[in-house]
């Protein structure tokens, strides 16, 4: 057969090798029946899964789900522990931004990542010795102020790096917001105690009852330690600025929960309780009020309806199930009563601009409403309390002035957690504080080693588009639901409401993971290659190798890769795509970067299973 007299379409007029499509592609057999082969070559290029990207501390979620799938629970636990010091805590309390980002949510239902994390966290709690070991001591001393999520995370990472860490905690018990801001029926105290014990096993010293500004001064910190992480959190509750707010029976959200958590609460609630605020703390307060003996709990919010409330939809659902009433579009203008709360004066109100981020307009002209209540719990956020901080490090918003690495000027002081994140647009939640603590610990380590702090420049390819994966490989499958205590009885006790996954449930749920953009050792490429050009020493993530000198570029492996991890890079030019075969892998650090490292050393050492 000759191409003489063949009509040559315009897109083929320059017969330069590489521009004509492969036979498996559209129009690939129009001009040349055997088509143009090997204009691309396949490479394994791991993308960042959206869950990993959305997680405040960038847990390698795909990595541990994959290990759970294979029954390697201990490896999975060790993998979580790289980024997260207390998976048993976040497995209970996290508002799981990962599940909101999960690609499976666009397909059927998101993976229940938090429940699997809790399963692994509980497994870690049951171990006699933790898998994490302290780093080789480097002789440097670091003080961490505050033992909440950010302080705990920073202390944990610093101990792993070999620092001698001392935590200074104001309260009689360590745990910060984890203890004081989260009720027992979400996070039992013994779970947190065990995690703090683990932290002490790493050599971290925790001094409770030490308040910076009172027991320890700024200069003491400067003199006695090589560096310091300020993870003091936001501890002063915001006021509603209503008349009579100082009456007996008015409580503030976080101190209310904190006193119960610390066991120092003397609060006796009446039958009718009003909770002011529409966030997650307000929800916890309302549910706690039921458990403290209140008969009727009403939540009063400025938001116009429940969808606008800045709260986790699941918690909101559970709260309504427990019988808490909602009252929207109102603000408290006065607390009425004779020395003690008897009622609230409410006015219609709305946010001036964006919901939850702008001042409130209260319509004082309209007739007021009277709302009878025995107690009021005000939970409308917290602010910083930084009287001890030198003025040069305070900013106009009343928080700490620092650079984008969390460093205060050119000192060895760093700030982490809510105190650093408030006002940044970042939602204030445990996992974000943990992530901030981790990053600050690494930045501090760099400063101590005299390295330059630089923003991360590696481009990260997050795989959001389901079309980049081969969805034909994934059947629809419903999410495994966590069991819950019955609504009627759970408000009478402090027992955990949400129940843990069994092993079978955890494996079943982990099996639903798409493994977006990363190799999960499905063996598909190995099986479909017609040559065969794909080799592997064993069936293991990232251990597949393409014999590129035999590959003829048919693209079958790329088309058939379920996770979108394989892609084609231009073969016949120097300007685009990959340069050298062995540099094609490491685009993101973490699990996938490590896979790339292992691939590079494939010949030198025995393959590992991660």
């Amino acid at each position, binding site marked *: *057969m*000759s*191409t*003489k007299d*063949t009509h*040559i379409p315009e897109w083929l*007029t*320059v*017969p*330069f*090798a*590489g521009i004509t499509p492969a036979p498996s592609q559209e129009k690939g057999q129009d001009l*040349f*029946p*055997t*088509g*143009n*082969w*090997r*204009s691309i*070559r396949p490479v394994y290029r791991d993308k960042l899964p959206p869950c990993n990207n959305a997680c405040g501390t960038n847990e390698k979620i795909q990595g541990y789900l994959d290990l759970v799938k294979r029954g390697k629970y201990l490896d999975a636990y060790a993998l979580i522990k790289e980024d997260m010091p207390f998976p048993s805590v976040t497995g209970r309390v996290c508002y799981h931004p990962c599940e909101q980002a999960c690609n499976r949510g666009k397909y059927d239902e998101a993976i229940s990542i938090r429940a699997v994390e809790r399963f692994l966290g509980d497994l870690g709690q049951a171990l006699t010795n933790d898998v994490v070991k302290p780093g080789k001591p480097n002789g440097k001393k670091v003080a961490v102020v505050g033992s909440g999520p950010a302080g705990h995370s920073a202390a944990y990472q610093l101990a792993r790096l070999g620092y001698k860490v001392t935590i200074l905690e104001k309260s009689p018990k360590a745990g910060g917001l984890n203890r004081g801001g989260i009720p027992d029926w979400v996070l039992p105290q013994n779970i947190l105690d065990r995690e703090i014990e683990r932290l002490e096993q790493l050599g971290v010293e925790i001094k409770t009852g030490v308040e910076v500004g009172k027991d320890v001064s700024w200069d003491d910190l400067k003199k006695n330690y090589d560096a310091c992480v300020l993870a003091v959190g936001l501890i002063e509750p915001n006021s509603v600025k209503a008349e009579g707010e100082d009456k007996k029976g008015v409580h503030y959200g976080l101190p209310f929960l904190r006193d119960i958590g610390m066991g120092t609460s003397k609060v006796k609630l009446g039958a009718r309780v009003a909770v002011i605020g529409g966030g997650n703390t307000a929800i916890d307060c309302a549910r706690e009020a039921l458990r403290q003996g209140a008969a009727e709990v009403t939540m009063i919010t400025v938001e116009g309806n429940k969808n606008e409330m800045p709260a986790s939809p699941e918690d909101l659902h559970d709260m309504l199930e427990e019988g808490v009433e909602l009252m929207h579009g109102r603000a408290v203008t006065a607390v009425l009563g004779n020395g003690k709360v008897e009622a609230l004066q409410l006015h219609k109100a709305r946010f001036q601009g964006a919901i939850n981020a702008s001042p409130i307009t209260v319509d004082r002209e309209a007739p007021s409403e009277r709302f009878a209540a025995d107690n009021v719990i005000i939970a409308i956020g917290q602010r910083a309390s930084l009287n001890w901080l030198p003025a040069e490090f305070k900013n106009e918003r009343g928080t700490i002035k620092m650079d984008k690495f969390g460093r205060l000027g050119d000192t060895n002081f760093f700030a982490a957690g809510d105190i650093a994140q408030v006002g940044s647009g970042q939602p204030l939640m445990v996992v974000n504080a943990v992530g901030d603590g981790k990053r600050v610990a690494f930045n501090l380590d760099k400063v101590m080693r005299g390295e330059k702090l630089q923003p991360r420049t590696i481009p990260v390819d997050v795989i959001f588009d389901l079309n980049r994966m081969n969805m034909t490989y994934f059947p629809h499958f419903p999410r495994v639901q966590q069991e819950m205590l019955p609504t009627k009885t759970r408000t009478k006790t402090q027992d955990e409401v949400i129940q843990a996954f069994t092993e079978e449930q955890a494996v079943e749920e982990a099996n639903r993971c798409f493994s977006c953009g990363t190799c999960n050792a499905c063996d598909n490429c190995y099986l479909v290659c017609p040559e065969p050009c794909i080799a592997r020493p064993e069936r293991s993530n990232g251990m597949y190798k393409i*014999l*590129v*000198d*035999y*590959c*003829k*570029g048919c693209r079958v492996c790329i088309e058939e890769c379920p996770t979108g991890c394989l892609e084609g890079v231009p*073969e*016949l*030019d*120097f300007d685009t795509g*990959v*340069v*050298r*075969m*062995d540099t094609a892998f490491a685009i993101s650090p973490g699990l996938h970067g490590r896979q790339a490292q292992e691939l590079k050393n494939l010949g030198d050492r025995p393959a590992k299973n991660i």
Partner: protein
Amino acid sequence: MSYTELTVWTRGIIMDKEGRDIVNSISASARIEGKYAQAMENYVDNPDRTNCPTRKYCRVSDNVLENELTYENEHPNIVVLVEGTMVKGWDYMRGMPPGGTLVINTHYTPDYMIRFVPGAERLAQLVCVDAAKIADHKWLYYRLGELGLDRLSTEGAAERNKSIAPDIAAPLIAAVVKTTGIVKMKTIEPMIANKHAFEVALNELHIMPLNPVAV
């Protein structure tokens, strides 16, 4: 006693004949000089697939070839890349003993290309020659009709010109022979069809001396 292995990497169909011309002409010249020589293609490659990497082998020895039934060159002393982008593709340097030679058809200089070469410490010299330009290799860009004959999986059966090295093979042969002395210039020169390109290439080689091995 000298024994030399030459491996030519080329691309299926579009440059398959060029690779074959190199190994055939060099082994034929070696035999004329009274040496033992053989040339063959790698049968597991895909020469009938456009652009696929394919290998051509040649062995030249003063003695009888003991490994003449071994199919692949395990320790090539000389590697030729007939198409420049192959340099970044895979480990074509594997098995090369120290003191090897790498010849690349490219318009880039050796300074630029060395960064892509895996295991460049084994090289005694890196040679770049812009063979496509020297051989006035126009068909690559616009002579589609004639190229078409060569792009229909004919594996050379319908080639327009049956002479040896009418095109880019000529400058590449010049580069190999001049830099390694595997055969004598005067034995190979009469075989080459494109004598002009062969002679021009002798003066237009970009040679980068690297790590010579003491004999």
